[in-house]
């Protein structure tokens, strides 16, 4: 499908677990990306 069945809108997500990781130094330095996590979960939901 060319049209994903979801819109990734990080601003709407209240995800305490992911948000806590985003603030950890070793996550930031590693290049951790919350939007990659969200994209993966949404893909699994709409595959």
């Amino acid at each position: 499908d060319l049209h994903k069945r979801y819109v990734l809108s990080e601003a709407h997500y209240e995800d305490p677990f992911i948000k806590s990781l985003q603030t950890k130094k070793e996550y930031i330095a590693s290049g951790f990306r919350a939007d990659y996590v969200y994209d993966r979960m949404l893909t699994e939901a709409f595959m």
Partner: protein
Amino acid sequence: EYSKEKKVGEGTYAVVYLGTKRSSNRRIAIKEIKTSGFKDGLDMSAIREVKYLQEMQHVNVIELVDVFMAQNNLNLVLEFLPADLEMVIKDTSILFTQADIKSWLLMTLRGVHHCHRNFILHRDLKPNNLLLSPDGQLKIADFGLARNMGSPQEFLTSNVVTRWYRAPELLFGARHYTGAVDMWSVGVIFAELMLRIPYLPGKDDIDQIDVTFRALGTPTDKDWPEISTFSAYNKIQIYPPPSREELRRRFIAATENALDLMSGMLLMNPHKRLDPIQCLTSEYFLELPEPTVPSELP
């Protein structure tokens, strides 16, 4: 169904044979996984190859034709790919053009994009894992170090990717990295295609950090927030990033867009490093020369 005609290689956990698939008379390669002597049962590399190759069918990813057991050995039947990019780069009798380089880079990025959209990290991209088929197609191979993109709370090992192609976050021991580590490797391969010699050939892991920063500048907290939290960071030499002029001199045949693309793949901060889609849609692939048609590649 399969014959093993000639042994062509032996690695730590597998022996590779050339052979034929009888029903179609198709040339194939058979990777026979050694099973004796592994105290923990089937080797992780074999499990990874099987697990991830089974899920992908893409022209720029090596095809897993079949898997079977024989004499208590696991056999992976793979498509026959007689050459790889390392051979081409090293063989100075082969002249190749900017259009050729663009074609190989395009196929590599398509293959990496397919892996990443399946949330699979390759984690060992380098020229001799980019194999070439008789019709010129470039295919990503050797998924022995591949893994699913980590679940958020997972700790990934940083001891992956062959040293010269290893991203700075890995050199610093990062445990929560992303597909950006593959993009770094592709950036180094791109540089090597243009230079025809390895771009960042470190002698050991420490030297690799020094070679990398000497060539591309030492990152600071400003352009890579929290980098100073890596313990190894405090012991390194500070080098200035190269000027655009210096880059031009180093890559004399590269166009401005080529330099932009390469620099984008070699951005120190993994957050900002280009992802496969940004690379595939970059100006570099829209400007002349057009990428060489695979069947006409050297």
